[in-house]
């Protein structure tokens, strides 16, 4: 969903495309997924 222009004057910013949103989520998602997987592997010891 994109913002609607309003009464204030926004600074000239680059528009964000769908691709940049995907890249942004990958940037934070990959380390988070790695951390979760490491934790999950450790947690498996509880059920052995």
């Amino acid at each position, binding site marked *: 969903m994109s913002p609607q222009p309003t009464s204030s004057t926004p600074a000239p*910013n680059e528009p964000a495309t769908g691709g940049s949103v995907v890249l942004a989520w990958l940037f934070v998602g990959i380390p988070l997924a790695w951390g979760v997987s490491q934790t999950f592997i450790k947690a498996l010891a509880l059920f052995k």
Partner: protein
Amino acid sequence: MATTSLLDTSPASTSFLDRSRTIAGPGYNRWLVPPAALAIHLAIGQAYAFSVFNKPLGSLISGDPNAPAPTDWTPGQIGWTFSIAIVLLGLSAAVFGKWLERVGPRKAMMAASLCFGGGFLIGSLGVHLHSLALLYFGYGFVGGIGLGIGYISPVSTLIKWFPDRKGVATGMAIMGFGGGAMIGSPLAVALMNHFKDSAPQGVTPTFIVMGIIYLLFMQFGVWTIRVPADNWAPKGYVPSTEHNALITTGNVSADNAIKTPQFWLLWVVLLTNVTAGIGVLETASPLIQETFSDKFMGSGRGVTAAAAAGFVGLLSLFNLLGRFFWSSASDKLGRKVAYAIYFGLGILLYALIPTLGHNLQLTLYVVVACVIISMYGGGFATAPAYLSDLFGKYQVGAIHGRLLTAWSTAGVLGPLIVHNLHESAVQKGLTGAAAYQNVFYTMAGLLAVGLLADLLVRPVADRYYEKGPVTIEAGGH
């Protein structure tokens, strides 16, 4: 471009860090804001993994974690590093909240990244020189300020971008704080293994590398974050016309908010929720090993140290998931009802835990503990949306910062209660589940206090609201 300092808020300053340079232009996609916030929270969430350094820091002189030298730091001395950082988190969030509202999230995120990354670097010098004071000052004091500013920096911005899904948005960011430990812990272990031959326990170079990694990682948030233009609203967004007296359309300043009973009721809500949750987290490993030891389960069938570490990992996972799940659910349930569930269900589950321990029902015990911890995380993540509902968006970041002093208090109170009650039970000769039952019953009692505080929350009286329209720029004056 004028050269400005981080704290320069003069109208003439035009650095890229300024709020005016972060106002989103047409076409900016608001779904870029949660990853920007996550970049900050995933980094600072490392603090919860600080215990991974305990043994290495305690054997810098001897070189053997199992045989510390007399001049090595004790676990108690090392533990103060984390405690100082958590106290500074609450204090700096309270002190810098209004500054954040004035200068905007980008400058605050930059300050947070410099403090958090810099804290590691100063701490590395403390480790290298074996100076405890320098470790406290670096990781604890400077890093703790980074934690506080970083924690609140994206919150009000997220609420402004997602007025239709406040719980989802803040839940996503605060989930990152829970996830940060999951990244920070294996990362630290891997780095210490890599550097173990070049420095005692590999700690000094690990601190340096982690400081630089986190400083750079947080820059993603600094550069990506944007604030919406004044009066911006999502396309097609129509504020709910359904009357809910606990969702205000007005605005209360941070200074006025702390004069209201609602603020202090929420302070008690957060204090009790966090104190009880820390009670479980703090003792998770010894708790499950002692409750389900060979003595009670039979030879070779007790919970081992490795399995207990798995239990701690599982709790971390549910702490993370709960932050997103419960906070998102609060968008539908309402904040007051959501907290009533955390507390109501929490009281039942805390009271049930000792019985499950006595009956040696391990699987059910683990499931119940996971649900409890998910609600502990949910309590953290729902707080900003509750504040926004009650006090408006005007200075919600600053109000949230002041609320976080409850976290600092709980960080001291929770472990104190647990250790004293457990110690007292052990002195009476109690073992296994019996040694912890008073801990859980006391925590259930604390949750009852929290439930009462939540139920007492009423709409804020008109006299506390700002008169006339407010602008963000005016927020700090």
